[in-house]
């Protein structure tokens, strides 16, 4: 086994810390939502906080912070293709000779 007893104990302390951080961020994002900011600001703030939370889960609970190369490469491509899907589709919708939603 590659992890010693001590190391695991250290991990556990990290998990508790991450848990607290996640709770705090949840509270923050909910509180911000009650301010009813303009939609652009609200989106930026909400996604920013969500990204931090998501990264914390991925990095510590899913151990991505110290993972093997194969997994990094796979995820790198996945994220790239995901961004491709979303960005290219959105661009295509914007750069449209006919606008799809005429009411």
């Amino acid at each position, binding site marked *: 086994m590659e992890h010693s007893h001590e190391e695991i104990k250290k991990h556990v302390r990290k998990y508790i810390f991450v848990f607290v951080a996640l709770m705090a961020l949840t509270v923050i994002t909910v509180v911000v939502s009650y301010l009813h900011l303009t939609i652009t600001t609200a989106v930026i703030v909400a996604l920013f906080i969500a990204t931090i939370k998501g990264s914390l889960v991925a990095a510590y609970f899913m151990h991505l912070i110290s993972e093997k190369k194969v997994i990094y490469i796979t995820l790198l491509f996945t994220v790239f293709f995901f961004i491709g899907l979303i960005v290219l589709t959105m661009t*295509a919708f914007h*750069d*449209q000779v006919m606008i*799809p939603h005429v009411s």
Partner: protein
Amino acid sequence: MSTSSSSHTVDAHIHHDADHHEQGFWSKYVFSTDHKVIGIQYGVTSLLFLFLGFTLMMIMRWQLAYTGEPFPVIRFVLPIGIIGLLTMFVSGFKPSLGTTVGILFIAMAGLIWYLATGEERMPMGIMAPEYYNALGAMHGTIMIFLGVVPLGVGAFGNYVMPLQIGAPDMAFPKLNMMSYWIYLVGGVIMIISFFVPGGAANSGWTSYPPLSEIATEGQTWWLVGMVFLITSSLLGAINFIVTILQLRVKGLGFMRLPFFVWAQFVTSFLLLLAFPPLEAAGILQLLDRVVGTNFFLPSGLVISGEKLVNAGGGTPILWQHLFWFLAHPEVYVLILPAMGIIAEIIANNTRKPLWGYKYIVYSALFIGFMSFIVWAHHMYITGMGTTISAFFQTTTMIISIPSIVILTSLAVSLYGGSIRFNTAMLFALAFIPMFGIGGLTGLPLGLATSDLHLHDTYYVIGHFHYVVAPGTIFALFAGIYWWFPKLTGRTMNETLGKVHFWGSFVCMNFIFFPMLIQGMVGLSRRMYDGGEQYSHNQSVLYLNEVMSIAAWVMAIFQIFFIVNLFVSMKKGKKTTDNHWEATTLDWTATTAPPLAHGNFTTLPTVYHGPYEYSVPGAKKDFTPQNEK
């Protein structure tokens, strides 16, 4: 018996039988977790689906050639029924694979009888327009999702890939079995859809909304079936990738992998990452149809002069994006395994290393990467602006380069070789120019200017059939002739094979070349009457009959293949383990692998690259990978 080229290989038969309980028929052949059995299951099922898809098309071709004339049912049903009876006769009516296949053929004759009769489908024996659409949609779906991909990936990939990398089985054998059964359920759902009210799905294999959303019940079945097929592919893809990453035998580095394995590797990544968006889209369309959401339905839709009452707000274009995000990579799922098969056969039969192995591998990887960012070249006509179409035109032109690199490498590999012209090699040789035509005809489609004219015409049909039919399907035939000795320990008959090849080769071109001509004149695809009603088509209408007759004649040549397949199983010439004197592990390190057993008793070790043929100074003209 083993010619024992390797000291690491012990005959698998002897060792295993001693300490192995005899498994029952069911666990050995039906609910098996052995990759070879599963490969054969995929193979048999997908061949039957290919046959069904081909038959649907033959019924359609009657309508195109002789619009408005009653369909001659007997002429179609009888030969298929007779093949079934013959198969059962050859297998002696005993419970065996042959008999099962015979029964399936007879069932298929019954199915065709059903499909080609009935007042709703064929009033007075003449095909109803909606029914023509259903046949077209199901032909496409069955051929691609139930025929070619399961044969190229499910069958060949499953059977051959683990042998080529020296693995005892797939990484997750139970998951492998599940993939097959989920695939089968998806296939059965597709078949059931022919019997539901209103018949099978009739909105094309692309299922564009809003048409698909107001279509009859068959479309719902289609969507459910697709969800199963996609799930099966995803599980399969995970299994393939893990197997290739983790189970390669000692010494088998990535640059020593046979190209076939590389092709399966890239293909699996395409399936893994491109299919989920279609699964999402399928679920959304299913919800649109079943619970009344409006993801793809715009507001203010008017159907047959009546305004549709719905919440609206959706957009059909979204479906097209999600669909083509899969469906473009899907065309490479169709072609890459085919290229893999061709590479193996060409290297072996020229008795030379592949020319530019490294570049072929890099090209395949590059194709895999690029195929995720070219999809909207199917959508120029949707009113895409110039900026975004410039992007997709550029990526489309770029992705054709690696295809050409692979094709060139394969062609140059022939130079200076002492070529053995067996049936498998003939199919492989034909693949090169046929895929060449298919690829080159794709270029004008990739440029928006010319595509605006060619889109949705028979030119597109000609283009992709050249890649898929005389391209991929020829490669799959080649693969069957090629690996048949590995499966059965016998060879297929060469004379019958050559008749099959030449007949198919000539007919293919008579079927698909005229499509390119028709398309350039402007004949639209999906025309129920073959384009008769438009004046601009008149000059090319005569080609409809030519193509139909070529299609039926080609069907006759397939009988040579079917007979060859079954007779050779029983009566083919017995041969050694390494019939083709090949270098890869599938041929050298195992004896004709016993089913439902492990592949190797002692795992071999690899010392060489995949295609070391005619190495100067070597004793033989081939150096197996596991020979020191």
